[in-house]
């Protein structure tokens, strides 16, 4: 599913009549995403900005053939929205909401898995296939088609990386913001195989944070993968305060687990290059990927 996203993929926005839902539906559409409609608890027969509005995901899917959804719901409404989407047959659901409770996320994860669907989020800016489509709100200025597949826990740190890649004449083949929560949908380790299988991808950028074990899980999968594309990793939080979540609920270290030292060690042992600064990572990628720079 993730590897086949394109400008033709039919996408709905759950919560399309809200302030943020409407604004982002329009921004996604302007970027090229095939927004085929949305849902709202308010009956809106006239639609919104030319997009049809349905009162349920089931109706929206039946009428539009949508296979993917962006959920613009508050944190305590995210679980219900995701469950509604997958029971309507949606195969990919993106939830940018910040502040989704961990035990809700566990329930969502189980439901999505049982349905064979894919969930990306929460606390993430979404995903993009630059030049084709985006789901969520990755800034247009950071996006350009190119050779680097990005996976990131952080929105803003990935914007910084994406923006500098674009300025260096590079760009992205696919970009998945997995989000900063402790319990989430797609995880770093899930993305290595699809990124390696993607013909447009020539390098993988992993943008992690202290806390949790996703970088370690990714390292284990990378170590077991023969002939992976090169992995460049940047991990924030060397100076994070122990016992306190640094903005992201998942960025929490305690008692020596989830620290930068452990993550760096595992990633390097698996063959990834780990960088201490944004600029040093960009310089290395720029040098290694010179053959893939845009000519313009």
């Amino acid at each position, binding site marked *: 599913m993730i590897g086949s996203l394109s400008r033709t993929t039919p996408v709905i926005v759950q919560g399309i009549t809200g302030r943020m839902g409407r604004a982002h539906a329009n*921004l996604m559409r302007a970027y090229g995403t095939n927004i085929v409609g949305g849902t709202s608890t308010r009956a809106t027969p006239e639609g919104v900005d030319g997009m049809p509005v349905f009162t349920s995901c089931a109706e929206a899917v039946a009428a539009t053939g949508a296979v993917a959804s962006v959920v613009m719901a508050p*944190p305590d409404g995210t679980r219900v929205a995701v469950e509604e989407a997958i029971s309507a047959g949606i195969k990919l659901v993106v939830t940018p909401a*910040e*502040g*989704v*409770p*961990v*035990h809700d996320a*566990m*329930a969502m994860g*189980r439901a999505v898995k049982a349905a064979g669907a894919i969930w990306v989020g929460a606390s993430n*800016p979404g995903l993009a296939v630059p030049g084709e489509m985006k789901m969520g*709100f*990755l*800034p247009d*200025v950071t996006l350009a088609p190119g050779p680097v597949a990005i996976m*990131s*826990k*952080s*929105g*803003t*740190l990935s*914007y*910084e990386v994406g*923006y500098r890649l674009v300025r260096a004449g590079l760009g992205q083949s696919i970009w998945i913001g997995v989000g*900063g929560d*402790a*319990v989430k949908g797609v*995880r770093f380790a899930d993305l290595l195989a699809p990124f390696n299988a993607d013909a447009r991808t020539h390098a993988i950028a992993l*943008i992690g*944070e202290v806390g*949790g*074990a996703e970088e370690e*899980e990714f390292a284990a999968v990378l170590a077991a993968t023969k002939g992976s594309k090169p992995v460049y990793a*940047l991990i*924030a*939080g*060397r*100076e*994070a*305060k*122990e*016992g*306190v*979540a*640094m*903005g*992201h*609920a998942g*960025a*929490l270290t*305690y*008692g*020596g*687990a989830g620290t930068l030292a*452990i993550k760096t060690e595992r990633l390097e042992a698996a063959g990834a290059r780990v960088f*201490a*600064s*944004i*600029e040093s990572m960009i310089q290395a990628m720029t040098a290694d990927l010179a053959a893939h720079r845009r000519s313009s």
Partner: protein
Amino acid sequence: MLLIEADGKALFRAYGIPVPTGDEARAPATDGPWMVKAQVPVGGRGKAGGIRRCLTPQGAEAAAAAMKGARLKGHTVHSVLIEQAATGAERYLSLSVDPASYGVRVIYLAGGGMDVERAAEQGGAGVTCAPDRAAIADALSGLLTGDADRDALMAIGRKLADLLLEKELMLAEINPLFVGPDGAVAGDAKVVVDLNAVDLDRQPDIRAMIEARPGIYPDAIRKLQEGFDYVGLDPEGEIGLLTTGAGLSMMLIDELTARGGKPLNFLDIRTGQLRGSPQRIINALTWMAERPSLRVVLVNIFAGITDLGEFAGLLADALDATPQMKAPVVARLVGRGAGKAKEILAQRAPGMLVTEDLEESLGRVATIIGRPA
């Protein structure tokens, strides 16, 4: 967020999990010896000198007085717990949310102690199961097959499961769990709560617990009350950070520290939630200004959706409203409306460096503090 041991034990007590008799003011009137334990929300307190064993109540109270006010692993000790020392064989029991399986990880180890804790953290020990009472009890029952203290441990495990599920915890760990002739007693409590659940008012007891200790949980209280994250780092820090986005803010702290700078705080102000009000910026600048060591404020905003013109106006309003904040401001603003922001700030805050280049802004910060940063 990690609770201090005393709060974790208050939750244990509420769920019927036995804990030693203890007090945060004086040595409890029990038989000795007494354990004296600094109440800071970090692991590894024993090895850092935050736990002492004393043979007399006077000795325990003197040890507590010596710990109080001291710094331990980056935290000031605001409270010290004095308990009757528990005895018995040391075991380890924990229940935690397992992100990869969307389940609960159950770990039981027949040996307790600090090194066991390390092994459990690194080895992914134990088993995982569905996040419900019956599944957790089944999993634990399997781990306890053949254990002589099976019944006592199962009873504790069921209560710990109720606690984890009902209070929406991320971790409930007992290490050591003492098993003696009188049953099982939790020697320590490591409890990690989900602030998101607390923030949505689903866990009022935990909210009250956090709000009762402003000295120990200042960062969590700020988050619950203000809706954004400001984490005080180095109390002697020189560089105040006015930033948005958790990952980029953390990275900036790492890079500044690597260059010899001393960041005062972490901040994820969430520019998308300002909604035309400078209040969050005013609050952040006010907290920074309370630190006499503050020498410069670095603003770093990467605006994808936020309009920087509007943000620049709010920043200028906030600076006008906080005349006590006298440190110079360096602003790195990139993205939507950066040109307009530069114009507004040139007019309203003349002399402020406003740039789109992060490296240039870091260079100016270094110049202001008089050494590389």
